[in-house]
């Protein structure tokens, strides 16, 4: 609990935008939170540097109108997240203040609302008996939050073993009510409530083992699941110039991915994108549970016009919530859009502190900050043997679309999946604009991951995927040849090679994110489509001249596209299958010339 009186106090000494220099009268800690009192309004700030009696604090608000000499009160705590039931379906700012309970159209500085509803009653049921030895992260009981079994855990900040002296019976409690009493080996009692606090910049480490991720996470997006799958507990990033479809792609993933909890951190991006989530998610169904999407979602919104310092914090807040739910044995998907804005927030602050700049004026320690953050994701085994995961996908907005810039390069070292969005594909409206050749998933090199892929699809799955990728590569070469030598300067085979790759492109790679059926392709259907496409285009096809190649493949692609728009295995779907069959028959048998 905050006891402000016992802590240090200070006075504002200098102001450079949102960096404020404070002279202090006592001890303070690095990253300590303080409140600068601006005409009765407390502005939250964080200590980022100290030097003698001077503390450099970054203010999480606009400092316009702040005066020299203003009073500052330190809290003795670092930036903390409040963790407890009531987080799901909420919408927060970067510091986890509930946006819904704020008053007025505009965000007023100092309007700090509580993260969870402190007055709401939850039905708690204990799951361990008193007398048990417990440690941080152990499950004491649970409440049902939306559809999720929300575990009430031993506070993460406690060290060592505790004896569960008392646990309260099943019943209705507020989050602040005591539900258990722990006893340490000195006989000191610690009451436990349903909420706890955790400093967001530190990782929550209440698991026994963190193996390499091995299980594929279905996103329903063909080019991801089929070509470069991500795993439960995996990390990935999506760099792309503006207009290449990053946001649409991330939203598709957030809607469809196989996860118990989805946390969306909108970090320095457009407010309207968040509004879209606010508007859509309460309406849309979660394809996995049939309940509403909003029920499994937490949104952290620090849009581009909200204070910059809170943008940095928002990423850590989001990761802390993800770790909290992972400790309950759940699979959490964390999406951050975009990590570049986060890095820019670091740059702005480093600049104001007059630190010597690294490449592109970013701080020197940017690569370590990024890799450290990505390392908090992962698949873990908890103390009780259960498992949980955080899958983290971040977008990167490279300046000028140039991937050789510090944020992209640092992220490339930290993330295991790379989804390159190509401007050329976006320009020709081939969405999602993920380049299948440039993109990769390092998980395809993990033996344990290959094993699960084989059992999910089939034993020759990887061989098939490599075949497809190879055909795409050959198709690209063929396209170059046709462009250089002209349509009649190359063999008919070259045309066929080109159109084979176009078929893969149009049928498997491209997907209509705005079509109700095509937007999400379950793994089973992906397997079916890969097989049927491969089978169709690998048939020996006969053509008299190159001019026959295009019309044939155009027809083929058209039939496949119609299939993609139909309910899997519906009557219409089967009709298209028949059409496909006839079409291929026609060009394999009835064309006599080459036989």
């Amino acid at each position, binding site marked *: 609990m905050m006891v402000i009186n016992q802590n240090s106090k200070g006075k504002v000494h200098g102001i450079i935008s949102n960096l404020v220099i404070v002279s202090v009268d006592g001890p303070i800690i690095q990253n300590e939170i303080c409140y600068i009192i601006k005409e009765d309004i407390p502005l939250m700030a964080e200590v980022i540097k100290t030097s003698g009696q001077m503390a450099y604090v970054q203010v999480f608000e606009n400092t*316009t109108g702040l005066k020299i000499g203003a009073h500052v009160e330190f809290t003795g705590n670092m930036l903390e997240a409040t963790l407890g039931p009531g987080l799901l379906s909420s919408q927060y700012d970067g510091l986890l203040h509930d946006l819904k309970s704020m008053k007025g159209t505009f965000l007023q500085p100092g309007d700090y609302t509580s993260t969870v509803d402190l007055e709401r009653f939850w039905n708690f049921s204990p799951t361990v008996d008193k007398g048990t030895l417990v440690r941080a992260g152990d499950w004491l009981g649970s409440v049902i939050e939306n559809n999720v079994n929300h575990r009430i855990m031993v506070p993460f900040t406690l060290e060592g073993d505790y004896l569960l002296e008392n646990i309260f019976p099943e019943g209705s409690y507020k989050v602040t009510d005591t539900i258990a009493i722990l006893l340490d080996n000195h006989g000191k009692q610690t009451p436990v409530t349903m909420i706890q606090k955790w400093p967001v910049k530190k990782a929550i480490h209440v698991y026994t083992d963190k193996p390499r991720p091995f299980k594929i996470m279905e996103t329903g997006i063909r080019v991801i699941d089929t070509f470069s799958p991500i795993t439960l507990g995996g990390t990935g990033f999506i760099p792309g110039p503006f207009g290449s479809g990053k946001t649409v792609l991330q939203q598709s993933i957030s809607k469809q991915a196989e996860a118990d909890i989805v946390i969306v951190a909108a970090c320095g991006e457009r*407010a309207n994108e968040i509004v879209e989530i606010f508007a859509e998610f309460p309406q849309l169904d979660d394809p996995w549970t049939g309940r509403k999407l909003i029920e499994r979602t937490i949104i952290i919104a620090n849009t581009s016009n909200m204070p910059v310092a809170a943008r940095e914090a928002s990423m850590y807040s989001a990761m802390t919530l993800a770790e909290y739910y992972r400790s309950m044995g759940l699979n959490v998907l964390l999406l951050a859009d975009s990590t570049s804005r986060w890095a820019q927030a670091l740059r702005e602050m480093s*600049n104001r502190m007059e630190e010597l700049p690294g490449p592109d004026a970013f701080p020197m320690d940017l690569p370590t900050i990024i890799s450290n953050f990505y390392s908090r994701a992962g698949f873990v085994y908890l103390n009780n043997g259960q498992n949980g995961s955080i899958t983290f996908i971040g977008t990167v907005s490279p300046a000028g679309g140039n991937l050789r810039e510090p944020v992209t390069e640092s992220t490339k070292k930290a993330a295991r999946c790379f989804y390159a969005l190509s401007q050329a594909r976006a320009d020709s409206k081939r969405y999602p604009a993920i380049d299948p050749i440039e993109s990769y998933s390092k998980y395809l090199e993990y033996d344990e991951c290959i094993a699960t892929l084989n059992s999910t699809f089939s034993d020759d799955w990887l061989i098939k995927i490599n075949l497809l990728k190879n055909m795409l590569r050959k198709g690209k070469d063929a396209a170059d040849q046709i462009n250089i030598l002209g349509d009649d300067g190359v063999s008919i085979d070259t045309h066929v090679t080109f159109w084979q790759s176009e078929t893969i492109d149009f049928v498997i790679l491209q997907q209509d994110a705005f079509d109700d059926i095509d937007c999400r392709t379950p793994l089973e259907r992906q397997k079916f489509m890969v097989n049927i496409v491969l089978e169709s285009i690998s048939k020996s096809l006969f053509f008299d001249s190159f001019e026959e190649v*295009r019309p044939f493949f155009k027809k083929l692609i058209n039939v496949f596209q119609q299939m993609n728009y139909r309910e899997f295995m519906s009557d219409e779907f089967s009709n298209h299958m028949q059409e496909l069959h006839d079409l291929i028959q026609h060009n394999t048998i009835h064309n006599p010339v080459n036989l």
Partner: protein
Amino acid sequence: MVGNDLAGRFFNAFGLPIDGGPKPEGKEVAVAGPSVNPIRRKLPSELLATGIAGIDMNNTLVTGQKIPFFADANQPFNQVMALVALRAKADKIILGGMGLLNDDYLFFKNIFENAGALHKIVCFANTTEDPPIERLLIPDMALISAEYFAIEKNEKVLVLLTDMTLYADALSIVSNRMDQIPSKDSMPGSLYSDLARIYEKAAQFEEGGSITIMAVTTLSGGDITHSIPDNTGYITEGQLFLKYNTDIGKVIIDPFRSLSRLKNNVIGKKTRKDHPQVMNASIRLYLDAVNAKTKLDNGFELTEYDQRTLKYSYEYADRLLAIDVNIDTTRMLDIAWELFSKYFSIEELGIKSTFTDLYWKK
């Protein structure tokens, strides 16, 4: 100082009249106020029709959107913007002119006067005769007035900002004087946040008012990787490119590089259901024509399909992409179907059969 008196008036960066009229009456408010709580915004989903098919069909605009024209200095962006502003059904048009040439200032003044739209115009202008630092105040002045009309009067406000490149240049001058370490292209490291603070004022409010921002970012030599257009592109909801089409001798809206991110909130919902697919198919076929043209330039023979796409491309550019088009979206879609039937077979479209069944004419 905001109030109803602002309508029909022209001011400088400090809000002082430059049209010879009296000082306006109203209440004083601080500029660059706090941002809107995202939860109090509404999803922009009201079509902003301009009659220009290159915009309405391919890059549909929505009230509450923010979108710039990326244009070279010699392109007629101010004219197109004025045209769009007059056709769009806005209650107020607020012009923020930064580093405006005096001639352009007079152009806007005249065109609004001639259109009899003066009563809904508010103009804040900093011309090239004024000190560049004063430009920094223009967007704040324009937007605080916009907020007054949008929030207190529930009006649909269209804000025109030209030219944001000159605004960013002024930012870099200030940051330079403050000994800040410059990042890319000698721009301040905070350029993204600075621009976002302005553009994010665009919003659809719950009570019906809205602020739509249409801006101009001039490019140097068409380079969109420069910090200013680059950061702008990441903030705004799309961008519009103008292009001179030599085949038809007209300025068109470039269908490849232009984008409206919010179009999916309205197309196929507020417009006819086939809109998204028709849009994509027509652009894809136009791209085929561009490829055919490259072939032709390289001296290769064209296939029969190539020739059809070329013919299609001339008609598509002339009847739908040119900026002098003024028709409603249903008519645009009908024209597109007419062109499809004229030049292509049904398989070459790749459109859902539910739509081809309805609209394919042959």
